């Protein structure tokens, strides 16, 4: 079974990995398994899920822009297996790029009109790098702290130092004449 025509195999690998992440993490961190899966589907979405929405938005924008730029160079055709098998497999790192590559994978990419042919290979590289960087972003989820659980598990502030016991007022012995 070759990798380039087995989308079910890729989906199986991603699903099993997410399940394993959920099982082997601590009870409070099991949401990271779902975040792992969602982060594969859409770059940055895993960070949204654990509450780090600024970081998730950053990853979504920067990886999305890179992908669109690479696709623009390659005439809005993803990397096909015939173009470059290594770049093609690199697209499997993200569900979005994987979906586009699966749907249009047989169409050979061509360099856009008005662009020098030497830009073609870097354009394919841009598309591939998005998938590979998304794998790094997914792995960073395992190290990230979920905002919701962080606030819930925040240690209680230390109790204010109690004032020392007031010295008991001992009645002075009455002087006797």
């Amino acid at each position, binding site marked *: 079974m070759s990798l380039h025509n087995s989308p079910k195999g890729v989906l199986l690998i991603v699903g099993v990995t997410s399940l394993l992440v959920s099982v082997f993490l601590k009870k409070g961190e099991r949401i990271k398994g779902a975040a792992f899966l969602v982060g594969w589907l859409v770059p940055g979405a895993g960070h949204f899920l654990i509450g780090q929405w600024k*970081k998730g938005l950053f*990853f979504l924008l*920067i990886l999305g822009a890179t992908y669109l730029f690479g696709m623009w160079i390659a005439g809005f055709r993803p990397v096909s297996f015939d173009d470059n098998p290594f770049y093609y497999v690199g697209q499997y790192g993200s569900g979005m790029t994987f979906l586009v590559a699966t749907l249009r994978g047989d169409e050979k990419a061509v360099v856009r009109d008005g*662009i*020098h042919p030497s*830009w073609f*290979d*870097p354009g394919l590289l841009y598309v591939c790098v998005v998938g590979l960087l998304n794998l790094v972003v997914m792995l960073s989820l395992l190290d990230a702290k979920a905002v919701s659980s962080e606030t819930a598990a925040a240690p209680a502030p230390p109790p204010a130092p109690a004032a020392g016991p007031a010295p008991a007022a001992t009645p002075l012995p009455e002087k006797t004449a």
Partner: protein
Amino acid sequence: MNGISYLVLFFPIVLVILFVLEACRSDDPKKIVKRALANLGVLTAVLVLGGAFVYVINRWF
């Protein structure tokens, strides 16, 4: 655009890679930008020096 204009594409892709890698290990935006730009400088220097070395080797040897 001439045949080596694709070298311009080196800067955006390296910046993207460095920004993403730094964002994965840090939460401070200033630190992310500072480290990414510093590493871009180092990688560009390596590229330029390597290119110069290859040019010299091919030109005179």
